[in-house]
């Protein structure tokens, strides 16, 4: 009994708030200021765009805020808008907190007008009030409250003003009785609503909804309401009234499109509300944003400036990112050594050290680069510069069937495909996003560099190596653009998605928000990629170590014991490991699939290297070095590995190999992230088939052309 009472109390005191607003109104910053340090963030994902939840306590109430993705209106145009719309229509919540940008009230009120028709408890936060003040925009929030029938509170997330007032208003609203939302239409429509309502009233029509809602639904041509009425006798009485109503509206609005008519109503409402409550001293002076834009999106300077920024970001990623890399690398090497020492030389120690720790370590190694890259991207996004770049590049990208916003994920792909797939989220349209996801792999990632360095170093003169490397990267990008064009024509053939995008004001990003985003991304990278890599490492370890051939191992061990010359010992050891690898599951697969790659000039060793490379490109090098009988300590800088490769592989096979590495699947971690971002396993199958076939065909062409030139 007591427990029940207690539970009731708990339920009563929990307030669930849906935070809704257009993009770039400072929603995330507001949520940060409201919940302050008590922040506890949990992600629960929608399809791909996640809503964030924040919990905290205020004056004996437990407040739960759901931060819905920014939406210009409640259509299904973007995934964000769909997530927001579905949440508002289907989920349970107590209050809508609608955040508006005070400096752009009229357009923001369009969404508010839509929210009003949902008929829920609602509070309006007029955010960025400090900015509005600076631009001498005066808003009469009391008058606005009267017009909207909802409390309006001026807030500034940046200056942390109005936050307490907002919280108190939330408690007040929660405890008060709900009043029906009033959204008054123009007299013409209101009259028709009344006419239909009267018929319903006269016939005492039974319903759970209000007569006003039903009348409005009929006028809006809401299919569900029509279905509801279809078999009712009252329909005969309503029909003539409705027909007459439509005729009136068509004449009055000079349009036969009922949707247009209601949109126009909403527009008039927003405009009216803004005119009545906003006073702005008109100034002709260019705003700061306009002055910035004069340079940043300049016809001629815009693109070079952008390229400079990108160059800078990559310099940072690879120069600063490499400093902690060495520390992390030696850290993991030390752990591996200690583990082996501690556990002794046995299977268990090998699976932990060589399998789990080294696999996870190779992922953690890239964390610094990822953090820097994401910091740069967060900076691009929160300042509003990203929209400008999309604007500058859209024309060029559009020629290849890509969207202007695709550039961020593509450029990120030169660093690592994992964050690149994640960056593709900025693309709103599903098909554009998928197309971009499909060609990200064409941008050669950092992990492929060691392979290029090894092969280019082995077959080309030192003076030429740099140019060849540059050529590899550029041709990868060009292949990518061509692939985009082909995919667009063949697979993703659809109407071109329109490019309509807001160019938000330039704003200084808040340090806390950036820190929050970057650390979140870093955590996700470690958690998600780390778990997948762990599983993959164990699998690869197993496949390359089993089945065991004890007899042969035994006889080799005897030979090693007997050998006197240390060189001979090493040779025998290498022979043993080569035999073991050749007769491991991995070896069987390599031998079995060798015929598939023979036309490209690969032997079974190169085939296995490519196959293990599916897990991670770093493994290609270590696989090659084991297979060519060198043991696994060698890296790409070792001249003896280069020599071995030079003597075992022909130049045309090497070129063909490079081309294949350029194009096929990046790695397991990236593939898993790809599945998550594309939302379906079947796309990974498509991606695998598409990249493998393109890689095979282009390698085949490269092999035969270079063979022709060489001979």
């Amino acid at each position, binding site marked *: 009994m007591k427990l029940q009472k207690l539970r009731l109390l708990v339920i009563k005191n929990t307030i669930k708030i849906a935070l809704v607003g257009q993009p770039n109104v400072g929603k995330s910053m507001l949520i940060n200021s409201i919940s302050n340090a008590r922040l506890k963030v949990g992600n629960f994902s929608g399809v791909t765009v996640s809503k964030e939840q924040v919990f905290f306590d205020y004056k004996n109430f437990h407040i739960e805020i759901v931060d819905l993705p920014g939406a210009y209106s409640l259509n299904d145009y973007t995934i964000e808008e769909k997530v927001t719309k579905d949440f508002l229509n289907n989920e349970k919540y107590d209050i809508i907190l609608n955040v508006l940008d005070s400096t752009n009230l*009229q*357009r923001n009120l369009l969404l508010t007008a839509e929210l009003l028709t949902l008929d829920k408890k609602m509070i309006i936060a007029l955010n960025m009030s400090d900015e509005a003040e600076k631009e001498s925009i005066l808003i009469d929030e009391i008058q606005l409250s009267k017009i909207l029938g909802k409390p309006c509170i001026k807030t500034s997330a940046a200056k942390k003003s109005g936050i307490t007032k907002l919280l108190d208003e939330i408690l007040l609203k929660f405890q008060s009785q709900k009043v029906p939302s009033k959204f008054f239409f123009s007299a013409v429509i209101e009259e028709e609503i009344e006419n239909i309502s009267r018929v319903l009233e006269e016939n005492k029509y039974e319903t759970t909804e209000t007569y006003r809602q039903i009348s409005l639904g009929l006028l809006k041509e809401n299919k569900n309401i029509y279905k509801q009425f279809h078999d009712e006798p009252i329909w005969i009485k309503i029909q003539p009234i409705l027909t007459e109503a439509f005729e009136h509206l068509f004449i009055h609005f000079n349009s036969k499109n009922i949707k247009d008519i209601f949109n126009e109503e909403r527009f008039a409402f927003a405009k009216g509300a803004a005119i009545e409550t906003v006073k702005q001293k008109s100034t002709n002076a260019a705003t700061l944003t306009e002055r910035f*834009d004069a340079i940043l999106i300049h016809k001629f300077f815009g*693109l070079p400036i952008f390229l400079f920024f990108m160059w800078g970001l990559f310099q940072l990623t690879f120069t600063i990112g490499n400093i902690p890399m060495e520390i992390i690398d030696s850290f993991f090497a030390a752990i591996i050594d200690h583990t082996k020492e501690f556990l002794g030389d046995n299977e268990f120690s090998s699976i932990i050290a060589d399998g789990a720790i080294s696999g996870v370590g190779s992922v953690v190694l890239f964390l610094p680069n990822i953090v820097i890259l994401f910091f740069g991207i967060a900076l691009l996004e929160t300042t509003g510069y990203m929209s400008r770049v999309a604007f500058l590049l859209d024309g060029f990208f559009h020629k290849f069937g890509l969207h202007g916003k695709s550039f961020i994920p593509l450029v990120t792909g030169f660093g690592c495909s994992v964050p690149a797939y994640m960056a593709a989220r900025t693309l709103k349209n599903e098909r554009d996003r998928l197309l971009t996801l499909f060609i990200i792999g064409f941008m050669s990632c950092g992990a492929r560099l060691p392979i290029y360095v090894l092969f280019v170093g082995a077959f080309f003169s030192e003076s030429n190596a740099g140019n060849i490397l540059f050529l590899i990267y550029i041709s990868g990008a060009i292949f990518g653009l061509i692939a985009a064009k082909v995919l667009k024509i063949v697979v993703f053939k659809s109407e071109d998605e329109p490019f*309509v995008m807001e*160019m938000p004001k330039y704003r200084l990003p808040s340090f806390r928000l950036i820190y929050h985003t970057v650390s979140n991304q870093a955590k996700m990278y470690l958690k998600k990629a780390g778990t997948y890599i762990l599983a993959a490492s164990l699998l690869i370890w197993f496949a390359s170590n089993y089945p065991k051939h004890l007899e042969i191992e035994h006889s080799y061990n005897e030979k090693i014991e007997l050998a006197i010359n240390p060189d001979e010992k090493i040779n025998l050891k290498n022979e043993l490991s080569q035999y073991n690898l050749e007769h491991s599951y991995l070896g069987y697969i390599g031998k079995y699939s060798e015929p598939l790659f023979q036309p490209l000039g690969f032997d079974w060793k190169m085939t296995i290297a490519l196959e293990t490379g599916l897990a991670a490109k770093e493994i290609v090098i270590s696989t090659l070095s084991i297979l060519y009988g060198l043991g696994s300590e060698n890296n790409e800088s070792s001249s003896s590995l280069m020599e071995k490769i030079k003597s075992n592989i022909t130049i045309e096979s090497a070129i063909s190999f490079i081309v294949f590495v350029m194009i096929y699947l990046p790695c397991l971690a990236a593939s898993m992230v790809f599945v998550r971002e594309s939302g379906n396993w079947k796309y990974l199958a498509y991606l695998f088939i598409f990249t493998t076939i393109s890689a095979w065909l282009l390698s085949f062409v490269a092999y035969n052309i270079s063979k022709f030139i060489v001979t």
Partner: protein
Amino acid sequence: MTLNQLKINESATITSINCDEILKDRLYSFGISKGIKVTIVEFTLTKSTIEIKVNQSKIALRLNEAAKIEVTRD
């Protein structure tokens, strides 16, 4: 005339939007609608994309889309 025929810094008022519902809704949610005044801010070098000013918002759109918006010059 249509929006794409205007030059930089020219202003005009929208008289009608001739496109499918989806794009119309999109334009609408950005505040682009009949009777609204727009100003051209910038073209890209390839003349494929334009930036327009609508009230306090700045919107980028392709020339293809701009061609669907009928305007009269102020």
